[in-house]
């Protein structure tokens, strides 16, 4: 007992240690070079540029070898660990370099063969995939949601590695993200899977993300639904049996599979649905003992979920609409993209919220546009991430309609479209 505890203490990340910095190296899709060679070159590169401020990405290199073989070298997620933006001395840090290739195939479907029909029961990605590239970075949250989730999975793996007795300390490998629609729960699940597939590439050759279509697991035959769920999990079991794969099971809108059984007593739900809940619960208990699986679930209506499932979720993370500061960052990234594509032209340097704070929100030539953006962000509070991400598009479609526009004009349009969004909301509320 004591020995195991000592082991664990050593293995857990020690806060006093030097900071862990993750470097993600995206290898070109046609590069066949050995990872070790790339690692050496990247280390040389990082030696030359050993002070960075926060996240940084290199896409061009003076080294011909890197130019030929590497798409980008990124120092990532420094803000998750370091609260303050400060210079990071890479030579003093603990560097972990993750080299990965992206898979460019889209999702494949996983079928369940029923007697004479074929049900597409799940979509299935091999990670890391092109489709989710950059998704993690595009998700903006205030609290440390992202680092919590990463740390959670890391601890899960650590406990499995160290053979912690799961009868004494139990963990279920289930994450439940809940909150209003459009806040990026599903995206976060996908991005997390992608991120972990990259981070853990040293021990798993690849990741598999299986997105279950909950509705397809309900059979038209009475009493068959429970069996379909079991079949689905048998398929998943096959993936888990491959020890080289890290398997993520994503159940979107999990309330449809795990509706509260207490509601059935009212007689409004058919008893077939109870069997589904029971099947899901027992299957989750089955697969939780495998070290290479994580179950990610999302829900809009938590109160409808069966308590037995909620209990099984280790992390129940609320994902709310973004705060004003997060809105600012979302707009900021949108505008950066539009400038990169030269729809907003000429390029204007915008200040981040932190930089604005440092100059005390004083209006001058440098800060004027950024302050306008800040005002827009503040009045946009309450809109969901999904709405926010489409507002720049709507602004262009409704108020601009020309191929290139200045930043000032665009911000005006953005402001108008935010007002319009709230107006529409009011109207909808009046109707209902």
């Amino acid at each position, binding site marked *: 007992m004591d020995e195991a505890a000592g082991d664990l203490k050593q293995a857990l990340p020690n806060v006093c240690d030097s900071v862990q910095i993750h470097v993600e190296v995206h290898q070109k899709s*046609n590069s*066949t070079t050995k990872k070790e060679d790339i690692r050496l070159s990247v280390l040389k590169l990082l030696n030359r540029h050993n002070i960075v401020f926060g996240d940084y990405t290199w896409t061009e290199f003076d080294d011909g070898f890197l130019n030929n073989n590497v798409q980008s070298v990124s120092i990532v997620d420094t803000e998750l660990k370091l609260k303050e933006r400060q210079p990071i001395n890479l030579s003093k840090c603990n560097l972990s370099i993750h080299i990965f*290739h992206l898979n*460019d*195939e889209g999702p494949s479907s996983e079928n369940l063969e029923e007697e004479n029909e074929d049900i597409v029961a799940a979509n*299935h990605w091999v990670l890391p995939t092109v489709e989710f590239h950059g998704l993690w970075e595009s998700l903006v949250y205030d609290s440390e949601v992202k680092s919590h989730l990463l740390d959670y999975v890391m601890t899960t793996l650590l406990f499995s590695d160290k053979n912690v007795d799961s009868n004494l300390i139990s963990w279920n490998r289930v994450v439940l993200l809940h909150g209003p629609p459009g806040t990026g729960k599903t995206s976060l699940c996908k991005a997390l899977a992608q991120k972990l597939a990259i981070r853990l590439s040293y021990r798993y050759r690849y990741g598999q993300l299986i997105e279950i279509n909950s509705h397809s697991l309900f059979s038209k035959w009475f009493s068959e639904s429970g069996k379909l769920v079991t079949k689905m999990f048998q398929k998943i079991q096959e993936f888990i049996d*491959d020890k080289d*794969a890290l398997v993520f099971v994503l159940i979107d809108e999990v309330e449809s599979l795990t509706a509260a059984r207490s509601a059935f007593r009212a007689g409004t739900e058919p008893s077939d649905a109870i069997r589904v809940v029971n099947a899901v619960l027992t299957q989750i208990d089955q697969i939780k003992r495998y070290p290479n699986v994580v179950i990610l679930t999302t829900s809009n209506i938590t109160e409808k979920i069966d308590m037995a499932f909620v209990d099984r979720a280790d992390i129940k993370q609320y994902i709310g609409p973004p705060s004003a500061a997060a809105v600012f960052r979302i707009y900021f990234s949108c505008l950066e993209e539009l400038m990169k594509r030269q729809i907003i032209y000429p390029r204007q340097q915008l200040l981040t919220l932190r930089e604005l704070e440092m100059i005390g929100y004083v209006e001058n030539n440098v800060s004027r546009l950024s302050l306008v953006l800040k005002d827009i962000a503040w009045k946009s509070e309450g809109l969901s991430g999904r709405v926010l991400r489409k507002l720049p598009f709507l602004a262009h479609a409704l108020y601009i309609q020309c191929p290139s526009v200045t930043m000032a004009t665009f911000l005006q349009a953005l402001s108008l479209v935010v007002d319009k969004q709230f107006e529409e909301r009011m109207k909808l509320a009046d109707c209902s």
Partner: protein
Amino acid sequence: MALWGSGLPGPEAEGARSSHDAPRRRPFKSGPGLRRQRPRQKMAGPGRQERTADLLQSETVEAPAVTPALAVGRSGPAAFSSSQGSGCRSVSVVFPGSVTQQGCCRFACELLKHVLYQRHQLPLPYEQLACFYRRALPRQPQDGDAVKKKPHTTDSGSSRKGQQVLKELEGVFWHLEALFNLTLVPRILILLGGNAMSPKELYEINLEGISVGNAEESLQTPSCVRKIFHSLFLSDVFSELQVVPVMGTIVMVQGHRDCGIDWFRPKLNYKVPMRGRKLTVNLSCGGNGSAGASSQQGVTSAWDNYIWFQAPVTVKGFHE
């Protein structure tokens, strides 16, 4: 070890029809009722027996390496074995001499065509499809059968799909040839369904035991192809499989890291999957024939420089 499938034909089936390229152009049917009967296949009832006879006929005529005893099929030939694992079988073919690198490419292509047809991803054998869809290929169907009247061209949707599949396959064949010219290829995978990491069915062509020689001292490629199909047929690997829906087919090829091919995508992390049904076709060169041939065994020390490449197209099967 049970070597024979259930429906082994008797030797007395009439062998009047001579079809030299039977294994390629008209892969033998795997069993009655397994596939929809096609107008092309004139002999309706026990067509399999007849076709078998064709095959054996051509085999005994053209490939002297196969003994008559093998053709009769009453004794176990040494040329192949089939392991009776649950979802895992293998067929071994030993050539009595070296083969050319182009020959190896041809084996792979023919096996790919064969698998696609046998596993219901193509409605007709590849060559016949090519014949229909490319009028440029003016090959007259033999026996005046009714293929031309088939409404391929009227159904534009399926026609377009067919054209697409043929184009993709042609691309794969072309690039395979290019790859074979650049590097030794120890293994090829044909993956059906699912994705590259977890296919539903997996066909592995293992060329590790092949001795590559130049054209003069090597065996004739067509006779080797026939030998492969003969062994495949005898081991009866396709008949017990169920009909499958249309799926995607992925082709993976192992080649040298620095071979410089750019069409195929390198997959450094790839590992041959364990999941799914698997058939291994082991091709090797035995006998005393190839003294001067460069054996692939010689490069085993550098085997770790051979990595997997994936063809960047997924050939989507289609039905008429």
